[in-house]
């Protein structure tokens, strides 16, 4: 089922949870709603499910207006962050619940039994059928919650921070497992997360939200490598920030210059340049130049194939300032540089993403 939300507004008192959100979710895709807490992603998911209602705007399910349809009639499977398994029922009865409460055409007991067993096999937990939720681990509970949601044959699967309450290792396993499951079933799915790694790894498309608005929509690699706004850039990974003016093809930061191609910005324009840690390089022999931003090495973390170096920016007088940088270098490059803690160096960037200073908070 395809989903379209049109110009959704939702306020809680004075707080605008959603401010004019319009989005399309094509059939069969796995889409992530990504954003910091309070950005409105869960509210949007609940409005799509019918657990909450928009102040204005429309929800179209397969092209039909479902804005006022009750959650019961929407044919959505909803998976809660804290599973919401019925604790007085066995795993089997939990999964069977949706089939047992059907009023029209309730399946025979035999059919229910077969269907539930099939679903429990799908989530690889058929051996737990007679247990109670309290006897399961978190990961098992979430899989049962998913099986329960699938039992009613939903045309949309909505997952609210499905792995949020699990520990890192289980989260990673379940992530892979959910992706495989989606590739098998091809149900249109939307999941909410605040974990950018989870969104980028799992989803076909990522919707980045902030303060009730959509910041960017796109494929994972697209959103990661071409962030449309400073917010998206900062939210998707570690960031080094350089404020300055465009001078010719370079960016002048204080009295120093980072040589690079200024894309679409005129001379003298005030901009902020962003660079990921791996996009920065360190130069040591900088004697009397103003090429590169001066900084002092604070810490070198050299385990693994990639070394991380933390630095503080130096001002014109050679004193350290509060601004911090993080650089990632291949171990080999680090060995060439022979850096030591406390050393003064200069930072260069192989790639800077420029934004108007006005658009950065």
């Amino acid at each position, binding site marked *: 089922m395809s989903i379209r939300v049109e110009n959704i507004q939702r306020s809680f008192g004075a707080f605008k949870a959603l401010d004019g959100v319009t989005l399309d979710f094509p059939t069969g895709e796995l889409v992530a709603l990504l954003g910091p807490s309070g950005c409105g992603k869960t509210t949007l998911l609940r409005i799509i*499910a*019918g*657990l909450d209602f928009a102040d204005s705007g429309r929800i179209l399910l397969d092209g039909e207006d479902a804005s006022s349809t*009750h*959650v*019961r009639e929407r044919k*959505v*499977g*909803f998976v*809660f962050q*804290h*599973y*919401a*398994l*019925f*604790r*007085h029922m066995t795993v089997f009865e939990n999964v069977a*619940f*949706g089939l047992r*409460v*059907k*009023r029209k055409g309730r399946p025979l007991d035999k059919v229910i039994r077969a269907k539930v067993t099939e679903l429990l096999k799908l989530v690889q937990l058929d051996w737990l059928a007679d247990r*109670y*939720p*309290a006897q399961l681990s978190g990961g098992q*509970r979430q899989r049962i919650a998913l099986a*329960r*949601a699938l*039992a*009613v044959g939903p045309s949309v699967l909505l997952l609210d921070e499905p792995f949020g*309450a699990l520990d890192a290792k289980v989260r990673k396993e379940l992530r892979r497992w959910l992706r495989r499951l989606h590739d098998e079933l091809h149900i249109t799915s939307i999941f909410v997360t605040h974990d950018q790694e989870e969104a980028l790894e799992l989803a076909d498309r990522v919707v980045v939200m902030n303060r009730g608005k959509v910041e960017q929509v796109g494929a994972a690699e697209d959103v990661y490598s071409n962030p449309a706004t400073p917010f998206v850039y900062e939210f998707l990974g570690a960031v080094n920030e350089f404020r300055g003016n465009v001078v010719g093809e370079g960016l002048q930061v204080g009295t120093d210059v980072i040589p690079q191609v200024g894309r679409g910005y005129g001379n003298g324009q005030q901009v902020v340049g962003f660079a990921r840690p791996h996009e920065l390089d360190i130069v040591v022999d900088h004697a009397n130049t103003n090429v590169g931003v001066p900084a002092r090495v604070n810490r070198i973390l050299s385990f693994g194939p990639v070394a991380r170096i933390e630095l503080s920016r130096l001002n014109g007088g050679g004193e350290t300032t509060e601004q911090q940088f993080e650089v990632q270098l291949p171990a080999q490059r680090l060995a060439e540089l022979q850096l030591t803690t406390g050393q003064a160096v200069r930072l260069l960037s192989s790639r800077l993403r420029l934004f108007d200073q006005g658009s950065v908070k």
Partner: protein
Amino acid sequence: MPGVRSPRVLPGFGLSVGFTVFYLSLIVLVPLSAVFIKSAELSPAEFWSVVTAPRVMASYRLSFGASLLAAAINVVFGLLLAWSLVRYSFPGKRIVDALIDLPFALPTAVAGIALTAIYAGNGIVGQYLEPLGIKVAYTPLGVVVALIFIGVPFVVRTVQPVLEDLDVEFEEAAASLGATRWQTVRRVVLPMLAPALLTGFAMAFARAVGEYGSVIFIAGNMPMVSEITPLIIITKLEQYDYVGATAVAAVMLIVSFALLLIINGLQAWTARNNRSGR
């Protein structure tokens, strides 16, 4: 290993258990056993004839019957009250919340007099009920009304915290699976509340069985009709029939204990798989 005491994290186990047993004996068990010791002065045949006298039998039926009925009514309406207080916000909610506790605090005799004044044939409510053929004061119905009054806080106060902890997510999950509101309440909410409801029932019932002050005013105390067992005991005491009084009291104790045991068993059974699902 024999001879080696396993260390305990919490110290003072022996002392605290010893004190608990001693205190419970002093406050509860010793007075209760006195009831049995005193009533043992009767021969089994005498005992039997005292506790099965027709007037006493009628009082058991009223006391236990009215108490069970009142507790059952309190479970229904106490749940409703608790539900409104937990799930909705409305003006004056805190006042309503405070009012619930009043039957705890009010001297029961005052409650009895107030109820009698209202429900008597010429009372504020009674004058409208009487033409309809409904007599409340000085009838078993009056006893039930008084027992409902004193029992309602027990149900509300046991259900309320459990309801507060019951996440709306469970109801949302049920609705998203296609359950109607009624199916959700019957299959999800009520089973999850069952242990608390049974506890509230047991407490309201226990209180009602032991209630004296509020009932004797409104009951009218007609032998065979509206006389409760505690009143029979008091009457016997006033006639210096201590042995007879304790014999009836012993029966009351045994029946109450048996009923509470059954309710607690039910409660434990429903609570068994009702642990937190998180």
